[in-house]
């Protein structure tokens, strides 16, 4: 019964998504996403952040159109980011970094740029399609389950999402924790919603209403990224390859895809479930996909030299993870990736509260979004196959025009939200902060997720504590909370165990070397 309901809801969603204005928004979003994906100075997350103020105007008439625009940017950027990785050896997006390993070698050394591009597009499409099907069937179930959550359970979900950022992050767990704390602090600035006391304002009236996450995000990603790339641009070396995808390339890719279909399907499915874990999204998914492909391959030595599996697996996983990252955002109100954190910020600004109630209160919105994910990926796929040469030419926009343009757009984005110059200053300050944090190798994703989730985390914690008269054990009382908290602790312990194990290994190696040395003596 439930199963058939999904089809009915999805049909309704398609009816919403296929309205001419929504199709137009999707097209604009996808195109913008492709463009920013190709541009190295601007990422999908920053593009979504910069567009937020504009979506406020669109959302007045229809929030669905606004979210379709932002999601379109996300999908477009996912596809577009690979173009520069494969053709110029410059990643357009963090999630296309992994394509430098095999994409560029296939395009250059083996002289097959068309096959390299087509492989990534096909894999992206298959991965995203699978993930969207899973999204369609499981998001509702997750949301229904989440409805039974009280403040302690929700607090445990937030803690768990912070713990995954630390536990599964690539390196520097201490820095990740520090960024989470910093984000929570930033979220706490301004009036306390429960007691009405001003906090951390240091006497400044301007920030009594708090520091908005939009100017902070625009600064961290938009301005921070161009500063970081300005420093590196002297090193960047561009080698241009033909960007055309011919019909024979498509046929060859289809043959290659058929041989690897199980790899693509399985990395897609794993990527989706990985994407659901808060705080990860496409970048971590892409590395996971690459790792799995290499682990499972018989020809491990071909990896890094232009192996097609090394393109298809990470792409399928990255796109599936990106779709997956929207699930907790919609169902629980916990973003699964930095980009979905910014999209979630949009939902708040438009007056919608992400979380389980979204399914019942804004039924059309959710299903319109789900249907638009199917359409968005199809559209992106078609545009990509046809328009790659054109996209690659965007790379030729000179630095002297592109950089000031990005700064101006960031300024407009920050200002127009509240018509406040203070937000512009906050953006610039966080641009510098973001640049410095990048340089010092502090992860930015935990910071953004903490700023966005900070208020909700505090609210659920204090509601739980107030309800129990200050007894902290209430946080572990519901069984789900206990399970989630235990998982969170395990995740937090992973980096410590990792360090101890690597130290142990190093010590054993040193001891062995010493023994061998003595034996030789």
């Amino acid at each position, binding site marked *: 019964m439930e199963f058939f309901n999904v089809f009915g809801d999805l049909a309704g969603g398609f009816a919403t998504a296929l309205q001419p204005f929504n199709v137009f928004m999707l097209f604009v979003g996808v195109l913008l996403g492709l463009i920013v994906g190709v541009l190295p100075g601007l990422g999908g997350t920053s593009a979504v952040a910069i567009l937020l103020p504009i979506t406020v*105007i669109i959302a007045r008439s229809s929030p669905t159109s606004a979210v379709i625009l932002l999601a379109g940017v996300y999908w477009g950027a996912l596809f577009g980011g690979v173009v520069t990785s494969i053709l110029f050896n410059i990643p357009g997006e963090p999630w296309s970094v992994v394509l430098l390993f095999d994409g560029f070698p296939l395009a250059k050394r083996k002289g097959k740029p068309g096959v390299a591009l087509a492989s990534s597009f096909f894999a992206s499409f298959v991965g995203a399609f699978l993930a969207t099907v899973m999204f369609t069937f499981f998001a509702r179930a997750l949301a229904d389950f989440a409805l039974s959550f009280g403040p302690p359970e929700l607090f445990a979900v937030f803690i768990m999402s912070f713990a995954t950022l630390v536990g599964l992050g690539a390196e520097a767990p201490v820095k990740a*924790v*520090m960024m989470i704390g910093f984000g929570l602090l930033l979220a706490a600035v301004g009036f306390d919603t429960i007691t009405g006391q001003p906090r951390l304002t*240091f006497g400044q009236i301007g920030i009594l209403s708090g520091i908005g996450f939009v100017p902070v995000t625009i600064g961290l990603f938009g301005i921070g990224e161009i500063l970081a790339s300005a420093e590196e641009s002297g090193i960047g070396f561009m080698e241009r390859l033909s960007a055309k995808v011919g019909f024979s390339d498509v046929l060859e890719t289809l043959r290659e895809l058929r041989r690897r279909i199980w790899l693509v399907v399985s990395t897609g499915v794993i990527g989706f479930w990985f994407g659901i874990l808060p705080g990860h999204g496409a970048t971590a998914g892409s590395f996971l996909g690459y790792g799995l492909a290499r682990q499972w391959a018989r020809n491990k030595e071909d990896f890094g030299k232009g192996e097609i599996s090394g393109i298809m697996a990470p792409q399928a996983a990255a796109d599936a993870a990106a779709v997956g990252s929207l699930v907790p955002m919609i169902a629980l109100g916990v973003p699964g990736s930095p980009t979905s954190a910014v999209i979630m910020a949009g939902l708040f600004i438009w007056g919608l509260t992400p979380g389980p109630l979204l399914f019942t209160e804004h039924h059309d919105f959710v299903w319109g979004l789900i249907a638009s994910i199917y359409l968005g990926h199809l559209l992106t796929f078609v545009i990509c196959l046809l328009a790659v040469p054109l996209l690659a030419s965007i790379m030729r926009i000179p*630095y002297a*025009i592109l950089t000031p*343009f990005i700064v101006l757009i960031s300024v407009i984005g920050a200002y*127009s939200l509240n018509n406040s110059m203070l937000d512009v200053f906050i953006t610039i300050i966080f641009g510098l902060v973001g640049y410095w944090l990048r340089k010092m190798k*502090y992860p930015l994703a935990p910071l953004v997720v903490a700023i966005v989730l900070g208020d909700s985390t505090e609210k659920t914690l204090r509601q739980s504590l*107030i309800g129990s008269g200050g007894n902290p054990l209430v946080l572990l009382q519901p069984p789900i909370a206990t399970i989630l908290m235990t998982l969170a602790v395990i995740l937090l312990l992973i980096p410590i165990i990792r360090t101890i194990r690597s130290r142990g290994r190093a010590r054993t190696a040193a001891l062995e070397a010493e023994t061998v040395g003595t034996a030789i003596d």
Partner: protein
Amino acid sequence: MFVAAVAMIDSRAGAMVDTTGTQPGGIGAGFYPFWSAFVVFVCAAVVAYKSRRGPQGAPAFEGRQGVVAVLKLVIPMIVAVVAIRWLGFYIVSGLYMGLFARWIGRYRWLWVLVLSVGMPAAIYGAFELGFRVSLPKSVLYELGVLPF
């Protein structure tokens, strides 16, 4: 890294002073910021300790080139944003685009002019006329001399 950690300790120490008035450990307004600051403080101490004990990493900037490239972007950006108060967004954006085109891009004056007039005009059309988003205006606008 050491500098970053110390800076963080310093700012967090400030944050603690601001909140300790409201009994940390209770569930008052200062409870949550205090413990967030505490987490940052402890992590910063760990990072500082590690960077002191560990091998000295590479210096923050590799040579002068990197610093110069970043400063070339940062200084005009800050000047432009501060100048918006008097010159308004449109005049500043024209000057800013023109500056980059001439200084970094070394374009001919004709192109500089096209960019510094065309870009603000396009933004004016899109935001002011299209989206009805009002951006900061100049002193001359308030005097009734210019429309922006």
